[in-house]
């Protein structure tokens, strides 16, 4: 009966918008939406992640038109894509490398959230949805890695599905159910393809929820203090759109270096050997973006214990908003916590190296200490430091903080404090 009172003048847009106010919604969320005026380039990585998700879905749909999910044909169909399909090499290398660059962007995005306390009240839901997104990404990445049906594909599928066999009683039936047989075989490949096609769209759905929750609270910023008035914020368009587009360009240049000059740099040569269920490659390692988790898995000298530790390492992120007891969000004002944060970053990188190397000698010790610090950071340091550490005084407002250096109101970007660029 009643139409939505659209304020758009164009008759066609007005006709649509008054029946389905999607144009008003987009205008509100992506043009007028108020962003803190002091956000730095680390705030571009969510948008970069979105860009890469789009690239993954686009290239993935084209690849699915050429790929065959059958153990007898999969490997050859990937080679067919590489050699015969028009621009098949480009689509496949884009898909493979964009996967890694998607993870890279999301890792920066996650660590940015950790540093500036973006998970704290009132943004807990955004964070929880983010951890869920990360889990979906890991599942999708793993499933996709199996599809070329090379040696690493096959043995990654075997090792990862076997993790579930660690659980007593239910473990083995679960593994048989996942495989659809008594080993990783054709039914497994077939369903992995179906799920690899499905999950990115689930991911996209959760991204929409992630952004919807973000638009309730608004974005955090390097100072971690709220917007107190119009002088503290700028509209999303053109300020953030142009900044994000510039960040896209820089990131895509880096991506292109890998895509066009070393497309197999992050891959593993063994995956160009067709899958052989009777021979395990001498050295099995996951892709770089899973290495820290792999190190935690191997740090515990017990099958069930290692599996539980690895799952716990990811799941602990869900409760992070309640583990950090600090009332101040940004680590800019918490030097001691900041130091522990950078140790944590180093710890994750060290765990990555542990995961890449054979579990012998120094690497076993390093991965155990690394695992200890990983859990210690979340379960001991953050709860304790939040209570103990006296944060430095917070500025009264965002505008006061960025304008006190004598910069003019019009050149807001040039007056950012050096530490905000961390």
């Amino acid at each position, binding site marked *: 009966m009643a139409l939505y009172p659209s304020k758009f003048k164009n008759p066609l847009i007005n006709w649509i918008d008054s029946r389905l106010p999607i144009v008003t919604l987009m205008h509100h969320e992506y043009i007028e939406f108020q962003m803190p005026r002091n956000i730095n380039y680390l705030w571009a990585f969510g948008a970069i992640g979105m860009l890469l998700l789009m690239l993954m879905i686009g290239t993935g749909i084209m690849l699915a038109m050429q790929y065959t999910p059958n153990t007898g044909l999969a490997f050859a169909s990937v080679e067919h894509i590489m050699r015969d399909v028009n621009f098949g090499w480009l689509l496949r290398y884009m898909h493979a490398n964009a996967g890694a660059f998607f993870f890279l962007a999301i890792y920066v995005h996650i660590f940015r959230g950790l540093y500036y306390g973006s998970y704290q009240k009132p943004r807990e839901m955004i964070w929880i949805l983010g951890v869920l997104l990360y889990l979906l990404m890991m599942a999708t990445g793993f499933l996709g890695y199996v599809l070329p049906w090379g040696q690493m594909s096959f*043995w990654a599928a*075997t*090792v990862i*599905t*076997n*993790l579930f*066999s660690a659980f007593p009683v239910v473990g083995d039936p679960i593994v*048989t*159910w*996942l*495989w*659809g*047989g*008594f*080993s*990783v*075989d054709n*039914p497994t490949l077939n*369903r992995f393809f179906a799920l690899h096609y499905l999950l990115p769209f689930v991911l996209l759905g959760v991204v929409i929820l992630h952004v919807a929750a973000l638009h309730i609270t608004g974005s955090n910023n390097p100072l971690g203090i709220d917007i107190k008035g119009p002088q503290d914020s700028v509209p999303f368009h053109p300020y953030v759109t142009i900044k994000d587009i510039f960040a896209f360009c820089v990131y895509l240049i880096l991506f292109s270096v890998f895509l066009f000059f070393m497309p197999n740099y992050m891959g593993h040569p063994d995956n160009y050997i067709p899958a052989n*269920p*009777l*021979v*395990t*490659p*001498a*050295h*099995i390692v996951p892709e770089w973006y899973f290495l820290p988790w792999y190190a935690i898995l*191997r740090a515990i*000298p*017990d*099958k*069930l214990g*290692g599996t539980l530790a690895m799952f716990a390492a990811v799941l602990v992120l869900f409760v992070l908003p309640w583990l950090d007891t600090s009332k101040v969000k940004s680590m800019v004002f918490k030097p001691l916590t900041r130091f522990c944060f950078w140790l944590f970053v180093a710890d994750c990188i060290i765990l990555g190296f542990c995961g890449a190397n*054979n*579990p*012998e000698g120094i690497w076993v010790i390093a991965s155990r200490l690394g695992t200890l610090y990983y859990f210690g950071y979340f379960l001991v340091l953050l709860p304790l430091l939040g209570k103990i550490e006296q944060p430095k005084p917070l500025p009264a407002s965002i505008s006061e903080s960025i304008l006190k250096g004598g910069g003019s109101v019009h050149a807001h970007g040039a007056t950012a404090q050096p530490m905000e660029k961390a």
Partner: protein
Amino acid sequence: MSTIAHPSGAGTAPGDGGGDASRRNFLYLATTAVGAAGVGALAWPFIDSMNPAADTLALASIEVDIASVKPGEQIVVTWQGKPVFIRHRTPDEIKAAESVKPEEMKDPQPDSARVQKPEWLILIGICTHLGCVPNFDGQNSSHLGQFNGWFCPCHGSQYDTSGRIRKGPAPKNLGVPKYAFLKDTVVKIG
């Protein structure tokens, strides 16, 4: 569900009191229960469709001619998509397998419980840790392990000449499939 208070709507009849509210709650509960049971019953075919299909289950047994396997050698055959090791053990290897004390083992099992004929050791060739295929580490090999059995390249589990786990992260001995000797030189696995 039943704890939600339902305000009386515009269409509520006069005299709609507590008695009717509890009857309505009962209807809500009953509807939800029937719905949940229906969804649950329908979910099972979806879930079970992912379990092994009839043709996968049909590949239940194979027959292998083992006449050509000399002492000290092993052959690998595929059964249900999995590698199966058939090892012709030498008298030394049998002696080594039989002389291990239970306290030296992680998953204690006498050798006699793992073989039908001591010279033939038949095992599922999948490491009980995370499912890799252990390398044959018997005579004339590079002796990666200390127990002359198998060595898993993934995480370093070592098995002895009875396929029992002796060192490394694997929790259990290599599995023994169901098998029967049809003739002296033909074995049926499965």
